[in-house]
């Protein structure tokens, strides 16, 4: 397939969940691929915090407050204050966005090859059929040009390879997938599940579905989860899906991959006459040397916000606006899930039982609001939310001091069930990422400015999630049920999506139904930037499926000599 006029058949920008899949699929289909990432290299197994007890970690696992406040003041919202993983996060002082322009936003970024695939929450839930229809139905955002049937086989494909543990629950609102057996519920959760069945009709209390395997994949050199609960430090067992454990080895095995870390992509070179991306402009993070790489096709998978920033900074010769913004939608409709509502309560009984091992996923309560036309919910908002959580026991927290306190700290408190709502955020035209007119970073790229806010629908949804959470756990028989709704700054959920949305036409969107840029058919944007709405489920598995689907299409187009 190689075309002598290019250095590479394809360049993949970014090596996270989406970039890793793009590299795997394209190399396996015979393309010579260059994968670029702004982060430094972390090889599988070379995980500094892995397997260490707290006493072996700097400051017993908590990075110094002064360092967090000077260098990780945004990344801390993604866990950078843990000294077992601080080294994986973006230095917010050295690599800023425009903190004092626009509105408050939390952009949590990684600093490594593999991106957030090392750090993610691993919850892997499919969108349902109504998720793809919602924009059209209620008139918010634009109609998705694809439906569930278009993506379903690609969910099958990526789930089978990645290894997703989950139970087949037979629910339309949360379609089943290709699952390994679920991580089991504990005694308290099984009791709550039983209580839901008898006392909370219409609400399903099910196993969460996570990309932590319960069965080995020896053909990939990966073992099932060892119940360490140290995922974000990196897992040498390869028990959860990450670029390092899963897609990078596959891409490397083809012999077709060139990986260049420390490569900061600043913009894309665009030929207006040919309507093609002709090059990828890069600055070496260490030497500051500027370079341009060329390929026949480009997969932009730099992560939602970074991909949009790169696109905004990419203009044809003599133009003031991005080549990818013919529709006027680039940098608009930026979204994040609602996130800051949590509910907890005590599960009575089971005082003789505890947990052995630390599980990577607990339980899930799928969306129940606004699901069916005949449903008479009478809620004052559109779309819905789900909850994830679990039950567990922590040691008692006695008063006083001395031998009695020490003895009491050997005992466990009651079983507590905790859960948190994730809800859909509507696409709003005025929720934007733009470029600062005055400030640039150390690579000369204009800083990103965020103007993203939640609106009435999101706040009503949060209030409902809080109220329903209390109601359900109380009806299920839990004691001392409490709820908390904390300040929610967009970006908090680290489920940022949109900004280069998918749509039917070059007038309404940045990419078409194949994640292919309307304004440059050899450019594919397959990360979260392409999302036209958010559903309420965790997004990564959908990015994986859309990326594999786009790669399949792109290779066919190249083979047919169309692009």
């Amino acid at each position, binding site marked *: 397939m190689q075309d002598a006029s290019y250095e590479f058949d394809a360049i993949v920008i970014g090596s996270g969940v989406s970039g890793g899949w793009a590299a795997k699929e394209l190399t396996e289909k015979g393309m010579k691929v260059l994968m670029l990432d702004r982060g430094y290299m972390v090889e599988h197994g070379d995980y500094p915090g892995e*397997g260490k*007890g*707290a*006493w*072996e*970690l*700097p*400051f*017993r*696992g*908590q990075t*110094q*407050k*002064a360092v967090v406040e000077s260098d990780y003041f945004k990344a801390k919202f993604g866990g950078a204050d843990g000294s077992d993983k601080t080294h994986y996060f973006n230095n917010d002082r050295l690599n800023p966005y425009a903190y004092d322009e626009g509105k408050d936003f939390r952009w949590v970024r990684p600093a490594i090859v593999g991106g957030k695939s090392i750090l993610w929450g691993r919850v892997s839930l499919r969108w349902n059929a109504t998720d793809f229809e919602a924009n059209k139905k209620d008139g918010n955002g634009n109609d998705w040009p694809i439906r569930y049937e278009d993506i379903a086989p690609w969910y099958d494909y990526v789930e089978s390879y990645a290894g997703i543990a989950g139970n087949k629950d037979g629910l339309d609102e949360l379609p089943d997938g290709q699952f390994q057996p679920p*991580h*089991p*519920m*504990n*005694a*308290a*959760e099984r009791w709550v599940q039983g209580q839901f069945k008898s006392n909370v009709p219409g609400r399903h209390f099910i196993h969460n579905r996570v990309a932590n395997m319960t069965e080995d994949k020896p053909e990939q050199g990966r073992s099932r989860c*060892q*119940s*360490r*609960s140290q995922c974000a430090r990196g897992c040498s067992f390869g028990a959860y899906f990450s670029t390092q454990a899963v897609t990078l080895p596959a891409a490397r095995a083809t012999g077709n991959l060139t990986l260049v870390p420390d490569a900061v992509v600043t913009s894309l070179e665009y030929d207006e006459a040919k309507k093609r991306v002709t090059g990828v402009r890069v600055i070496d993070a260490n030497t500051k040397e500027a370079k341009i790489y060329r390929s026949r096709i480009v997969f932009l998978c730099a992560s939602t916000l970074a991909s949009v920033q790169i696109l905004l900074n990419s203009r044809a010769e003599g133009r003031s606006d991005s080549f990818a913004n013919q529709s006027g939608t680039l940098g608009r409709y930026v979204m994040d899930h609602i996130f800051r509502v949590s509910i907890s309560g005590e599960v009575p009984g089971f*005082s*003789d*039982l*505890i*947990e*052995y*091992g*630390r*599980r990577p996923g607990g339980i899930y309560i799928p969306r129940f609001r606004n699901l069916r036309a005949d449903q008479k919910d009478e809620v004052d908002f559109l779309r819905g939310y789900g909850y994830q959580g679990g039950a*567990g*026991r*922590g*040691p008692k*927290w006695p008063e*006083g*001091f*001395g*031998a009695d*306190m*020490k*003895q009491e*700290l*050997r*005992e*466990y408190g009651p079983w507590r069930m905790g859960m948190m709502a994730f809800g859909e955020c509507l696409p709003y035209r005025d929720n934007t990422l733009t470029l600062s007119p005055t400030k640039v970073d150390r690579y000369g790229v204009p800083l990103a400015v965020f103007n993203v806010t939640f609106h009435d629908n999101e706040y009503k949804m949060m209030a409902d999630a809080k109220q329903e959470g209390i109601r359900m756990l109380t009806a299920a028989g839990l004691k001392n049920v409490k709820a908390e709704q904390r300040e929610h700054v967009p970006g908090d959920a680290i489920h940022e999506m949109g900004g280069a949305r998918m749509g039917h036409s070059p007038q309404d969107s940045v990419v078409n139904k194949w994640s292919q840029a309307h304004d440059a058919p050899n450019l594919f944007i397959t990360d979260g930037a392409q999302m036209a709405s958010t559903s309420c489920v965790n997004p990564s598995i959908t990015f994986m499926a859309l990326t594999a689907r786009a790669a399949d299409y792109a290779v066919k187009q190249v083979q047919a000599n169309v692009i």
Partner: protein
Amino acid sequence: MDHLSMNRRMALGAIAGAFGMTLIPALARAADPTTSELGFKPVKNVFTPAQRAFVAAYSERIVPTTDTPGAIAAGVPSYIEMMLGDWFTGTERADFIKGIDAVEAHAKTTRKKSFVKLKPALQDEVITEVMNGKVPGAGTDFFYASRQLVVSGYYSSEIGMTVERVYLPVPGRYDGDYKYEGRVFNG
């Protein structure tokens, strides 16, 4: 002194622990304090020798030696000095040291002896007075902040995690119906 309190998860080690008496070699190794690594290099001295001795004695009363080693064996005094020197801010450090000095002054005024020279029972009386807000310059907030530091240091130390608690770095499986056997798991 609320700002001195660290998160509870750190204080307790991993909450969702699990255990079994399967780690005997690790327990035996960890029980020998000469082999235990503190996990840090003290960078600067924060205390005078007298304050250092006070912190050791005070820590040992918060988490005493019982059927398992106490705070001193677990290296808690050095941990506290390290945290005050390298982790907390200057104001927090100064507040804490003021608290130490106030308790020492209280011991000398009311018991006519330095805190470290008091018998354990009398040391416990003094600490109880701190806890109950009866000590000028070292109120209840100092008690909770200091207790938090000792408890954090102890339960995140090798002795705390592997001798006092049952260390399960690689459980290998999950059992949500495991019979409680008298100790807390961590990892």
